[in-house]
Every structure is written in structure tokens, then in C-alpha cells.
């Protein structure tokens, strides 16, 4: 047996060296470095391990006697030359694969790990036949240590620490390769067999992680998933994904004889469980996150109860055929196993506690009650917008006062003085009086013009007369640009909202006319689901930035008073789109006016 072991190690190293030699002059940029060569070597070894495991598995299946003994290294148990042939072929295949398609090799390793994990779930039920899956899972164990280190070195600058890590990796790969060989001589139901379930989970995670790394940044699917995850994370809904492991572990615990076993019914149940859970996570992420938190806490408590009740045999749920309980990664089959079970239970409860503040705000939002933090944010925002509204109102009043004082008021004083002069002049110099009267008329006309402008700035008459729809149409007509309007308002928004929106559109159109260089613009006004939405588009040069001008920022502040928002999209080269949304209800249906 030692002879074979040495042979296999030498062959694995040879395959790795072959791969690195090939890669040294090869096309893959990453593989030219020392790190790349080492990674290729590690991958080659991993592939070889997989090949050996597959060969052993197939041979064990075809030879029940060897399988029943379960204690001999398959290759050494046979004297036939076909085994040696298979082995040589495997070494060559691994070497060639790593040399030419190392990324595909990574794929194969990850796929093998996940397949092994799936097989592990199945075999864990038939605990008596541990030898076979021992082989599979103990092969996965060294890879669990070695592969991440190999892959992790990608994309980083080499350093002494790195070199150390790589040498450790090599050692692990070597030792790891010998482990399945050693473990296969250990009889089933020994202490190693307790590692079955943990190894299954580890293999699943590692396989998934490797697959992820193999895809990394290359596939549109990955970018899509990453994007979706980031979006969900921003909205605090990504914790829902934890429902999947929680559901699987719960199902395992509740009905160990049904789940994950062979047979159509069992596979059906498993598919239904996983599919249903995924659907729930996708469709109602908030509910899923809440359920995951609650489920993890419940699982933790169940674990504590399991540990407490194991010795007295009061555990109420069904056992596996071997008389054990699958509790997540721990297979509780004896008194000794209640300790890891307790550790896992405490870890689960801690995880649930950690999750509560992260998932509950979303849940509370769903239930319609705000959390303290949310209320605080809302209060702060209201205080800010109220202060801004008060400031704006005060500034508007000051401006009004100043305009009246310098404008109409001053002109009326001049008018009065003129009239007094006319009074005095009429008896003596009627011609001069006549000239003064003409002047007085001129002054009153100017005062009127100024008052009209003032009124328009305070509250446009057309807005008072006709409401927002026609007021926006009037704005469009007054604008120097050719403005198309698309207005669909079945009623009138509250007066303050109308006024704010009117001035917002006026400001945006004025900006467009001044800066965009556009000849045409479009204003769309609509109301749906309690939200008034106005979009102003100009087909100009773009590049508008709300941070630059005070105009748009002022509009934003004004809208904030009504919880309204303003969004600007203005790429250089145009078109510029300014969208404002204000939550409000519409009052009485529109009265048709011609």
C-alpha cells in the first residue's frame, strides 16, 4: 500500500509540474507567475483526488465484497493491471486539463465538491454504509483547506506571507491527498464518522464558493446576481436568503426519513421544499428575512432542548434509522454528541439575536409601524424641511415687502405729489399741469405693471383660476422654447402642492431656456397611486447639476416640505430630464373649461 501511496504522490506532483511547465510558456497571463504555477499544481492534485475517489467509488459499487470490507484501499486490493491503467489515465487527464483549461479544472473541482455534498446527504441516512461516503468526504476535507488558499492568491501582490501560505498549501495538498487513503482503512462508526454532516456542509459551501470564484466577474449572470444582491442589501432585504438553510435544517430535524433520501417521493419533497423556500425569498423578501430570524432562534432553542432531553430519551421528534437526530451540521447519535449540538444551538441563537435589529425594521415597516430609528429619521427630516419652509416663507415675505416699498408704494407717493403740484399749477400754468397729469398717468401705469409682476410671483392668477394643469400649459406657452405638454390630471392637488409644483416647473423651464441650448422641451404631468409626477425633458446639451445652481436646490427644498423629491438626469450631450414626485391626493374631478 505504501508503494501505491508514494506512486500516487509522485504522479500528482508530476502532473502539477507538467501543468506548470506548460503554463510557463502558455497564453494565460495569470499562470505565468510562480503563484499561477503553484495554483495549477494544487488544482492538478485536487483533480487527481477526485479521479481516485471516482474510481474507488465505481469499483466499490461493482464489487460488493470489497465494499463490505470497507477497510482496504481499493487500488491496493486489486492486482489487476486495469486499475493502474485507470490511474495513469486519470493523472494524464488531470495534467492536461489543468495545463490547458485551468478555469475549467476549477469548475470540475467545485462541481465535484457539490456533488459530493449531495451524495453526503443521501449517505448520511444509511449510516451503516459509511465506508463509501467516508472516502468521498474525507477527500473533500483536505481540499477544503487547500483550495481556498490556492485560489485566494489570485490578484494580489506576492509577499513573504504569501509564500508561506503557498508552502502551507502545498503541504496541505500533499497531506490531504493521503488522508482519504488513510481514512479508508479506519472502520466505519468511528470518531471520523461524526464528521460526515459537517463535511457535507463544508463541501457544499466550498463547492459553491469555488464555483463563484470560477465565475468571478466574467459572466453576465454573476454580475446580475451581484447587482441584485447589492440592491437587496441596500434595502436590507438580503437576509431572507438565510431562510433556505433554516428551512432545510428544520425539515431534516422534523422528518429525517423523508428528506434528502433516494426515491421519487423524497426527491419530490426536497425539490418542493427548496423551490417553495426560494420562491418565498424572491417574492416576499421581508417576510423571508423575518421567518429566517425566527426560524434560526427556534432551531437554537430546539437544539438546547435536544441536548437536555437526549439522555432521558424524551426527544419527541422521529429519529433516523440509526436512532440519531440530524441537527444541522451535528448528527446527534450518542451522549458525546450533545456537546457539539449545544455549541451549535448557542451559535444559532446568537446569530438570530444578531439578525433581529437587521431584519426587524423591514418587518415593522411591512406591518405599518415604524421603528424608533425610523421615527427619529422622520422627525429630523420634518424638522429640517419645516425650518427650510419657514425660512423660504420669511424670505418671500421680505422680498414682497421690499418690492412693494421700492415699487408700487414709491410710485403712489410720486403720483400723490404730482397731483398736488397739478392742483397748484392749474390756475396759473394749465399747460405745465397737463404735462404733469400725463406723467401721473404714466406713473400709475408703471405701478400697475409692477404690481402685476409681483402678484404673478406670489401666486400666479392662472393657477388660481384654472389649477395646475392649465397653469403648466400657460407656462409652456410663455416659455421661449417650444414646449409640448402631456398632462393627465383627473383632479386638483392641494393648493400648496400646486403652487410648489408650478414654481418648480417654471424654474426648470427657465433653466432649460437659459442654459440647455435646446429648442424644444416636453412637460409630462400625471398622478398615480397617490403620487403626483412631473417630468420635464429638454433636448439640449445636458450636463445640468443640481449641486451647481441654486435654482434646482431651492426647488428641491421647497418640494421637501411636502415629502416631494427631485431627480435630475442630465448626461453631457443631453437630453436633460428633471423628474419631481410629490405624494398627494387629488380633490374634485376636473371641471371642463372649453
Amino acid at each position, binding site marked *: 500500500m505504501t508503494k501505491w501511496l508514494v506512486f500516487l504522490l509522485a504522479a500528482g506532483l508530476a502532473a502539477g509540474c507538467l501543468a506548470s511547465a506548460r503554463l510557463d510558456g502558455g497564453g494565460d497571463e495569470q499562470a505565468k507567475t510562480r503563484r499561477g504555477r503553484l495554483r495549477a499544481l494544487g488544482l492538478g492534485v485536487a483533480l487527481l483526488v477526485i479521479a481516485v475517489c471516482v474510481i474507488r467509488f465505481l469499483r466499490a459499487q461493482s464489487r460488493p465484497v470489497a465494499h463490505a470490507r470497507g477497510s482496504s484501499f481499493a487500488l491496493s486490493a486489486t492486482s489487476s493491471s486495469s486499475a493502474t491503467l485507470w490511474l495513469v489515465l486519470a493523472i494524464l487527464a488531470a495534467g492536461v486539463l489543468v495545463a490547458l483549461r485551468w478555469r475549467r479544472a476549477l469548475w470540475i473541482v467545485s462541481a465535484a465538491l457539490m456533488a459530493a455534498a449531495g451524495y453526503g446527504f443521501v449517505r448520511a441516512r444509511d449510516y451503516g454504509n459509511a465506508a463509501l461516503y467516508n472516502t468521498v468526504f474525507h477527500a473533500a476535507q483536505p481540499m477544503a483547506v487547500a483550495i481556498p488558499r490556492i485560489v485566494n492568491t489570485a490578484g494580489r501582490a506576492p509577499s513573504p506571507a504569501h509564500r508561506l501560505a503557498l508552502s502551507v498549501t502545498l503541504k496541505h495538498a500533499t497531506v490531504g491527498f493521503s488522508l482519504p487513503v488513510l481514512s479508508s482503512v479506519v472502520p466505519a462508526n468511528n470518531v471520523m464518522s461524526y464528521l460526515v454532516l459537517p463535511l457535507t456542509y463544508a463541501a457544499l459551501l466550498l463547492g459553491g464558493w469555488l464555483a463563484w470564484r470560477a465565475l468571478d466577474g466574467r459572466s453576465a449572470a454573476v454580475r446580475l446576481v451581484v447587482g441584485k444582491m447589492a440592491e437587496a442589501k441596500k434595502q436590507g432585504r438580503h437576509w431572507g436568503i438565510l431562510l433556505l438553510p433554516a428551512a432545510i435544517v428544520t425539515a431534516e430535524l422534523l422528518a429525517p426519513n423523508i428528506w434528502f433520501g433516494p426515491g421519487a417521493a423524497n426527491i419530490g419533497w426536497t425539490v418542493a421544499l427548496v423551490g417553495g423556500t426560494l420562491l418565498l425569498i424572491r417574492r416576499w423578501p421581508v417576510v423571508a428575512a423575518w421567518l429566517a430570524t425566527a426560524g434560526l432562534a427556534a432551531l437554537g432553542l430546539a437544539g438546547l432542548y435536544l441536548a437536555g432531553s437526549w439522555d432521558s430519551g424524551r426527544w419527541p421528534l422521529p429519529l433516523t434509522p440509526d436512532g440519531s437526530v440530524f441537527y444541522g451540521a451535528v448528527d446527534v447519535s450518542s451522549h458525546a454528541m450533545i456537546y457539539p449540538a449545544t455549541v451549535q444551538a448557542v451559535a444559532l441563537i446568537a446569530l438570530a439575536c444578531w439578525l433581529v435589529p437587521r431584519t426587524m425594521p423591514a418587518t415593522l415597516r411591512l406591518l405599518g409601524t415604524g421603528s424608533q430609528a425610523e421615527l427619529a429619521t422622520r422627525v429630523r427630516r420634518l424638522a429640517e424641511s419645516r425650518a427650510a419652509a419657514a425660512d423660504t416663507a420669511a424670505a418671500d415675505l421680505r422680498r414682497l415687502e421690499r418690492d412693494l416699498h421700492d415699487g408700487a408704494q414709491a410710485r403712489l407717493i410720486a403720483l400723490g405729489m404730482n397731483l398736488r403740484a397739478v392742483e397748484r399749477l392749474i390756475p396759473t400754468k394749465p399747460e405745465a399741469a397737463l404735462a404733469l397729469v400725463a406723467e401721473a*398717468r404714466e406713473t400709475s401705469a408703471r405701478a400697475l405693471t409692477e404690481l402685476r409682476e409681483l402678484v404673478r410671483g406670489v401666486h400666479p392668477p392662472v393657477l388660481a383660476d384654472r389649477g395646475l394643469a392649465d397653469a403648466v400649459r400657460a407656462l409652456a*406657452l410663455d416659455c*421661449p422654447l417650444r414646449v409640448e405638454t402631456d398632462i393627465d390630471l383627473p383632479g386638483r392637488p392641494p393648493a400648496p402642492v400646486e403652487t410648489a409644483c408650478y414654481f418648480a416647473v417654471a424654474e426648470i423651464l427657465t433653466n432649460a431656456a437659459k442654459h440647455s441650448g435646446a429648442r424644444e422641451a416636453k412637460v409630462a404631468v400625471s398622478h398615480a397611486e397617490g403620487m403626483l409626477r412631473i417630468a420635464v425633458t429638454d433636448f439640449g446639451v445636458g450636463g445640468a447639476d443640481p449641486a451647481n445652481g441654486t435654482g434646482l436646490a431651492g426647488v428641491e427644498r421647497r418640494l421637501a416640505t411636502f415629502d416631494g423629491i427631485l431627480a435630475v438626469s442630465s448626461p453631457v450631450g443631453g437630453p436633460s430630464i428633471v423628474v419631481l414626485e410629490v405624494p398627494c391626493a387629488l380633490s374634485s374631478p376636473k371641471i371642463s373649461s372649453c
Partner: protein
Amino acid sequence: MRVVVAEDLFLLRNGLVRLLEAHGFEIAAAVDSAPDLLQALLQDEPDVAIIDVRLPPTFTDDGLRAALEARRAVPGLPVLVLSQYVEQLYARELLAGDAGAVGYLLKDRVFNDDQFVDAVRSVASGGTVMDSEVVAKLLGRRSREETLARLSAREREVLELMAEGRSNSAIAQRLFITEKAVSKHSTSIFAKLDLVPSDDDNRRVLAVLAYLNG
């Protein structure tokens, strides 16, 4: 000439009535609300109506709406609408239908009683009178366009006065040029704007306004 006056402010209503009577108009009715106005327009059949846009009962654009309704019932009913402010939107609504016999002026224009009375007579005889502010906005809006840029400065002035609804003689007087020169300019304007020339003053005004509104 029989006139209906609709104005809710007593002082202004009285002032208007006095001004019109001084210029030889006969006041058929002087009303202070939209329903009364509508009744007066439909029953008294005046030669022209002078209407404030903002009237009771809602103090919004009741006057304008009453005028438009009356014109729907009696097409071509001459109305001169007065307002504290002018809106192109309202100007469009008044001009819609191409019937003529409408006017839309700022209240300030009452100060110059001669011009105001001219406007009233012009509307009564089927003409169209637009406030210079409306015309200025229309021109401002189209000023970037090439067709208008082709006009000379003098032609623009003539166009502006034409759009306000002034006759050739009024334009000549205003610009201190001969009537012949005005008609030469107007021919040139119509050619440059691709409009069909017309000897009828009112048709001409409507064509120019339709072009500017377009």
C-alpha cells in the same frame, strides 16, 4: 352702439360706463357677476360686450368662461375681455374657432381712452384686438426661428402692430410712415412668412396670430 359691461368692482364699472357714455355708446346693461352677464349677453343682444375675466361667484375666470359660452351660443358675438393680467392660454381660447370679433386687453389700456374706444369699435365691427403684451410674448417665443429672423426691424414693428389688430392707417400713424409704406411692408411680411395675403383687415390679423400661435 349698445354695450354690455361686466365688472364686479363698483368704481371700475362706473368709470367704464362713464367713459363709454362720454364717447357716445349706449349701455345696454352693467352687471357684476357671471350669471347676470350670461343672461344679459343672450337676452339684450348687445353690439359688443366688455368683460372682466375675474367675476363672482368663484372669482376665478368666470367672466372668460361666460364669454366663451355666450360665443358658443351666438357665434361671432363681439366680446372684449379685460384683465389685470394677460395669459396666452386665454388668448388662444378666445381666438379658437377663427370667428373674429374678439379682443383681449389689459385693464391698463383704459387709461388711453381714445385707443380703448377704437379697440371697442374694432371688435364690434368684427375685428380682432390683442394686447401688445400677448403679441410681444408670441413674438418672443418665435424669435429664435429662422422665418422670423428674416424680417427687417421695421417689418417686425409692423407685424407686431398688425397682430395687435391695428388697421394700416393706425400703423402708419404710430410709426410715422405712409399707409402705402405699411401696405408694402405687410406684403413683404406675408411673402416671407409664406402666408396667403388678404385685403380684409380681420383675415389678415387672424392669419398673423394663427402663424404666431402655431
